[in-house]
């Protein structure tokens, strides 16, 4: 499922993460974000997770105080998109240990690193939770090392 973008925002409309997979100007991104956030926040709790907004298909889900909102293409499967969003939340949860909004605020760059290990170019790249978490772990280790060491990897 090709994600045009993924937005995370709070109940007050504050943006916590924005990942764009299509080239848009800063101005356009801001406009879309502002209007879409308003639209999603105005929806009632029991409503459908899917909406047609402008000419985009939007899928969103609320986890505690955070809304996970993304745009997919016309031919994409909305239900599996919900599963992809859920998988990302599970990854965050495993990494941070019972993740909450504050974790994502104070460690936003890590939330991005995890997302980048799960989605690539707007598509899911790894379907195994274990593999994603393992890769992040290794990359984190690498970051700790002061100088770059050549690590040979066997696969």
């Amino acid at each position, binding site marked *: 499922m090709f994600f045009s973008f993924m937005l995370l925002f709070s109940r007050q409309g504050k*943006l*916590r*993460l*924005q990942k*764009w*997979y299509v*080239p*848009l*100007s800063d101005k356009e991104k801001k406009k879309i974000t502002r209007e879409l956030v308003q639209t999603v926040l105005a929806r*009632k709790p*029991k*409503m*459908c*997770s*899917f*909406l*047609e907004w402008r000419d985009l298909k939007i899928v969103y889900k609320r986890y505690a105080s955070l809304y996970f909102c993304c745009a997919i293409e016309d*031919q994409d*499967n*909305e*239900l*599996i998109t*919900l*599963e*992809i969003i859920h998988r990302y939340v599970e990854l965050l949860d495993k990494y941070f240990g019972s993740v909450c909004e504050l974790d994502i*605020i*104070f*460690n*936003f*760059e*890590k939330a*991005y*690193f995890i997302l*980048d*290990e799960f989605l*690539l*170019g*707007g*598509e*899911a*790249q*790894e*379907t*195994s*939770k*274990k*593999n994603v978490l393992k*890769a992040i772990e290794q*990359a*984190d280790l*690498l*970051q*700790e090392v002061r*100088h*770059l060491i*050549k690590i*040979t*990897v*066997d*696969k």
Partner: protein
Amino acid sequence: MSPSVPLQEMIRAIRSARTQCEERGVIQRECAAIRAQFRQADNGGRSHNLAKLLYVHMLGYPAHFGQMECVRMIASPRYSEKRVGYLGAMMLLDEKQDASLLITNSIKNDLSHSNQYVQSLALCTLACMGSAEMCRDLAPEIDRLLRASNSYIKKKAALCAVHIVRKVHDLGELFAPAARSLLAEKNHGVLHGAVVLITELCERNPETLERFRKTVPDLVQIMKGLVISGYSPEHDVAGISDPFLQVRILRLLRILGRNNEAASDAMNDLLAQVATNTDSTKTVGNAVLYETVLTVLDIKSESGLRVLAVNILGRFLLNNDRNIRYIAMTSLQRIVGTDHNAVQRHRGTIVDCLKDQDASVKRRALELSLALVSATNIRSMMKELLLFLSSCPLELRAQAASGIFNAAERYAPSQRWHIDTILHVLTTAGGDVRDETVPNLIQLITNTSELHCYTVHKLYRALLSDISQQSLVQVACWCIGEYGDLLLRGECQETEPVQVQEQQSIIIRIRSIVSIYGSCIDVELQQRAVEYNALFKKYDHMRAAVLERMPVIEKNSPGHTNGESTREAVKEFFPPPCGSLQVCDLLDLLGGSEEPLQPNPAVGSTLPVLPVSTSSTAGGDLLDLLGGLEPTPLTPAPTVTVYEKGGVTLTLSSEKQSDSGLTVTLTACNSTDSDISSFTLQAAVPKSVQLHMKAPSGDSLPARGAAKVTQMVALSNPNKVGLQNTQ
């Protein structure tokens, strides 16, 4: 990974700001510090600084001064700096920025780095924001990685290739061979990437699609393996083995099986298996089922499988989960044309969804319900639809109203039912109907002469209870004007008669109201008011003839003016409706009625506006002079008699001024024994033509052709739009 203390401190400082102003102050200070740091030589805190800037950027503040720092960081040998540098590049540099080209070389180097996590950063960034130029540059590298690297890199290279193909379509050919061989891999990540890449290649290029059809058996095998295999903890999601991969394979099968019997046959068994065996208690199972259904309905599947698919959708409709109901209806909408009967079976459930709380679900249900209306179920469906109309959200009203009208027109079981339905809609949602509804309804009413009494009674009653709906009032006024005598008669077979009396005092009130409009600014209203005043004062001998009933309006004659002439009915006291109701074609100025004058109501009520539209029953070829698509010689235009009735003759002659302009001279002549006064001509033209009527030579036509009235009309067709004959 230890947190970045400087970053977290800054975040804390920003969050503790109590006002927007305070926050801006903190941010400005921080940005100044960051800028200073950027200028300094390499220190240990570079990645922290950039991270701070990225946070500030996410809050919405400008951060473009960090772009060059990103470029520098990406080139750093330190992994921590590369990581943040690439993140910064993805956030601050998109393909539209010039600076993005500067990182092409770094990406190229990093793609061949010995450390796979560094390679991964480069691949991720290229796939996220790589411009067409960068893609062309680096495509060979990606192809190399697709063939010879470990699984971790291969899966990423595959998706990077997808991005490249999206940006530069021609490069699809480059990746096709490598994509094919990737299908043999066991690693799910690589398989997933391969399937996505093949899907992209097939969607872009029909030839590639032909070649990849050979992979259908392989795909079926892989899919079977996933469906039948035992529990695999690594890929299991609620009992389904790697649903993400399953969905992608199903989608690829859909593309390969479309319009191809052989391929569709090869996947038939598999699809049946997936459709029957997939557990549908959780969303993830339903996601796979959904994709299966989409595939079955799109390929050349056998009828049994199709029925199975539609039944799955039917089950979805009954699901408690609103999301599932929604996608069920979306899918049913797609097939309601081809598998109409199958969808009809679920009509009941669909109609129930009209009452759902969610507006998106309601919209889907409305569209689907309208598509399911047929001659057999029209009565029950209309009941539901009208019920829906009375409580539906505002944004759906117009759509619902017009859908109901269309359905009523196509399948109305009886005239009376039809009129009832339209009246119902007008009373409920009169404000949301389109303008042509009023003339259409009036046309329908005039055609149903046996129901005139019934109709006028119903309308009168409707008016008595509510006069806020403009379209209803228009129709009602027109009918009461026409069939008021039926009201007065006080008897009606179809419905209970209303007791109405004619009152002299009302007529006096009408006269005074009409006189007020005699000085109205709106020329139309003023003209009619004056005319009616005249009719009130004199012409006793003519009044009866003038006020005859209107002839039946012919159906589907958009041109029929039907008495739309110089004397028009006075508009009612509500603001004039929008739309072209008083349009009179240039060449059919005096319309089709016997008399040039309008009927007058005898009962106390306001007068309706006549529903009229243009016609050009004659002289279409004259209008063609304005079209001018081919260079036509300036032929002198002939004089044409365009109207000859009741002793009034109207001729038209034209002269072509330029390629896009034409002057028309209208001449009216009266051969009757009495004078005609207050004679005016009106004209209307299509939107592409501009009309300018000069002042007429006079407004009275003396008897027996003693004198003529002429009027010049300038027409211009600046866009040289070709004009066609309208009926």
